[in-house]
């Protein structure tokens, strides 16, 4: 027998949360869709004008291209290195120390991490004393210093490295927990059967870790589509590094164009929906 609740008690407990979600999620999401069909001041209907801008203007196409670059290299990098590190740290004695160190950037802000790396990437013309570590290394090796954040396309990769530095630890922690969850008998049975390390990896480790991997991959995909802080602090989208979320911010505040900003948000939303759907489904499955 379960406690029968009337109407008022559930309302008191669940009501506040539902009210918050109506005001801060549901209503604004619907409103943004409406704004995306209106002009810059949300006064008159402009049809698909804003979407035409999103899909044809050179700045937006640049942003899409860069986000795609991020999607490929950031996702592959964080998940790949995260998985590799999860397996490697399992075999050393100072595992928890190693994990703390690699996981640490997750605790600090992206702005802080942005400053850390802006300093690493510091550029001075050849001849002057370098104060950025990367250019110092290049000079010692006999190369010319590089304007890491200014020269395209190297700057996009320089920014992606910052993303990797921040998020790899997150992937490692989740994948490490999943790796430790693989039944030992399974791994040992594989070894007895004479499976080589690589076979063990592809035929036992990867399939066993599939739920965790799909959560991590989808989480990284959503992150990368919404990536903002790193770009905003380090280049503000200049020198060909623009991304979708930074562009939306600019349309909103710099150009005060509500219609375009809303259309960008809607497109971002439509791209994210299937990924999040898959992400939540994987999480719910993990519960069972």
């Amino acid at each position, binding site marked *: 027998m379960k406690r029968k609740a009337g109407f008022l008690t559930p309302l008191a*407990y669940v009501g506040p*949360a*539902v009210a918050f979600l109506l005001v801060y999620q549901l209503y*604004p999401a619907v409103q943004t869709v409406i704004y995306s069909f209106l002009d810059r001041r949300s006064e008159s209907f402009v049809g698909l004008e804003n979407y035409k801008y999103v899909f044809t203007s050179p700045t937006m196409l640049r942003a899409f291209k860069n986000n795609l670059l991020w999607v490929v290299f950031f996702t592959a990098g964080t998940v790949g290195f995260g998985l590799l590190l999860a397996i490697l740290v399992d075999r050393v004695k100072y595992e928890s120390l190693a994990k703390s160190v690699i996981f640490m950037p997750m605790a*600090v*802000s992206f702005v802080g991490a942005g*400053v850390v790396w802006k*300093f690493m990437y510091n550029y001075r013309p050849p001849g002057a004393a370098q104060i950025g570590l990367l250019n110092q290394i290049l000079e010692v090796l006999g190369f010319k210093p590089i304007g890491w954040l200014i020269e395209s396309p190297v700057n996009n990769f320089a920014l992606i490295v910052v993303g990797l530095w921040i998020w790899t630890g997150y992937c490692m922690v989740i994948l490490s927990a999943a790796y430790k969850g693989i039944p030992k008998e399974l791994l040992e049975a594989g070894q007895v059967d004479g499976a080589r390390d690589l076979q063990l990896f592809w035929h036992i480790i990867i399939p066993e870790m599939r739920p965790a991997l799909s959560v991590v991959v989808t*989480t990284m995909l959503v992150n990368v589509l919404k990536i903002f802080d790193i770009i905003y602090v380090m280049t503000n989208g200049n020198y060909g590094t623009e991304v979708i979320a930074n562009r939306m911010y600019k349309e909103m505040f710099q150009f005060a164009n509500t219609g375009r*900003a809303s259309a960008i948000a809607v497109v971002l939303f439509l791209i994210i929906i299937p990924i999040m759907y898959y992400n939540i489904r994987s999480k719910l499955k993990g519960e069972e």
Partner: protein
Amino acid sequence: MSRAKLRRMLPRVIVNGAVILAMALWIVPTLGLFITSFRPASEVTSSGWWTVLSSPLKFTQFTIENYRSVLSTGGMTTAFRNSFIITIGGTVVPVFVAALAAFGLSKLHFGGRTFFYGLIVMMLVVPTQMTFIPVLRLYNKLSLSGTFLGLTLVHTGYGLPFAVFMLHNFFDALPDDLFQAAYIDGASVWTTFVRLAIPLSIPAIASLVIFQFLFVWNDLLVALIYLGGHESVAPLTMRLSSLVGSYGQSWHLLTAAAFVSMFVPLVVFFSLQKYFVRGILGGAVKG
């Protein structure tokens, strides 16, 4: 050394080498920032931070002047206070509202609770970008933009779906019989919430609190949107990002300011790491 022994040792050497290399890649950038923040301006511009490693014990080459300067004239003291106010409000309110909702959805039996739970989880799909413009317009009408209250409420609205999702799973794992027994003993719903559900889920709540704390402390975008250009209420992240613009190449000051902003989250992280990791695992794998 025999060849067989060598062959057994080689993989271990490679594994250790790789892990140590990775640790170095993660430590060195932060170390550079940390060392630079203690060097005088003239030296920061004339030589790389690694040059101090040749004589690390020469303490006269270090100074705390940069910290004094960012805290007094850089506006970092006000920003520090603002970050605290925003983070405390932005943590306590959402966790409390989420705990109430998660408890109601898990332990009270009423029509439509699956629907409401589904609705809340569905909101995880909505990127915050979808909400900025309408909420900001609403805030401008209600004079809530640029206020701590406004920002607290926003963080509550944004943090809720994940918080409810996580706590609901935890409350669901608590046996119904326990609550049944309490009701038979005459306990009210509120009593079972405060005396049973909350104490039993301290680990989950602790994880959630740390998670939300770090999230709000480190947030830049939401603060930029809803606090606008109001320097007097700007948190550390906003202050630091505007210093990146105004200080430009004054690395001795920028590094000190960055470290001020990283200090609290690093302390929280290293002292409560276990809960933080559990929160991430709770949200990511087990749901």
